[in-house]
């Protein structure tokens, strides 16, 4: 038989606990209890699972959501999900005090991409970056629109004179000094194929034209590329004190 309460007080006077909630159903260790002033908690099976603290902050899996979080989720190997039952799109908006969406993360289920939006203070967000369904990272960094970015996959700056040495590098395990002005750049992680592009430069060591090029009659490989520093009208090989090589794919 339902209980009808008249007046404005309702049920009062019992705080309860996680093991014996103040408000229960037929399961006596599951329900709502009041662990502290201005605090509401929810228990399941005798343990607290969620709390709304005195500041209105919500903790799921934690009794201390912290003052900086309106919603805090805690657990071991846990996560949060946003499900779109229509499989169209889900998003997370970051709003100003007036309600303007100045920042945004959006996922499109139909085409499988995720976008990131930002804007100047007080303005509505505009898509700035996107990861498409193939994993391509696209962004608008002065391109005029969101476009795929192609990365430098390996690079090295080395001194090819005297005691040959690498100054700095990325995705390079070593260079091989094959002879005068003749070097092989060995990649740490191989390229997906050998169809990459090579960008090179060197310092000027004399009045003759000088450049670094792919070694004659050799083809780039996925694991390394062999280059030569050449100069003058005879294109003789020459050691260079500053050699710059980068691989873009």
């Amino acid at each position: 038989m339902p209980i009808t309460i008249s007046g404005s007080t309702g049920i009062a006077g019992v705080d309860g606990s996680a093991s014996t909630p103040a408000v229960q159903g037929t399961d006596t260790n599951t329900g709502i209890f009041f662990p502290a002033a201005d605090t509401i908690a929810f228990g399941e099976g005798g343990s607290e699972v969620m709390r709304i603290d005195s500041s209105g902050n919500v903790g799921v899996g934690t009794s201390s959501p912290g003052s900086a979080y309106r919603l805090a989720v805690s657990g071991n190997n846990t996560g949060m999900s946003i499900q779109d039952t229509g499989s169209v799109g889900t998003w997370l908006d970051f709003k100003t005090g007036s309600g303007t969406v100045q920042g945004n993360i959006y996922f499109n289920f139909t085409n499988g991409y995720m976008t990131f939006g930002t804007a100047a203070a007080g303005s509505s967000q505009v898509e700035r970056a996107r990861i498409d369904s193939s994993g391509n990272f696209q962004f608008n960094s002065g391109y005029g629109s969101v476009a795929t970015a192609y990365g430098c996959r390996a690079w090295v700056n080395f001194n090819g004179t005297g005691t040959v040495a690498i100054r700095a590098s990325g995705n390079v395990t070593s260079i091989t000094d094959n002879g005068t002005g003749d070097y092989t750049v060995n990649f740490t992680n191989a390229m997906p194929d050998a169809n990459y592009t090579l960008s090179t430069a060197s310092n000027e060591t004399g009045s003759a034209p000088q450049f670094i090029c792919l070694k004659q009659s050799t083809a780039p490989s996925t694991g390394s590329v062999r280059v030569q520093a050449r100069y003058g009208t005879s294109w003789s090989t020459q050691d260079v004190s500053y050699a710059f090589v980068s691989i873009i794919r």
Partner: protein
Amino acid sequence: MNKRIIYPTDEGGVAVIIPAPECGLTIEEIAAKDVPQGKPYKIVDAADIPSDRIFRNAWTYMEEDQ
């Protein structure tokens, strides 16, 4: 890394592998990866490699170095 790896080239010269300081591999791992398969090689101190490279293309890999 003050070590170098040397091995003979097909042209009769010697190649010198200079490790990248930030690559995170040991000199032995670099040798296993970057020395062409089947080539004998030797790990030496960087100081053992001549810094005078005027006759660099005349350097050879001596048998006793193997």
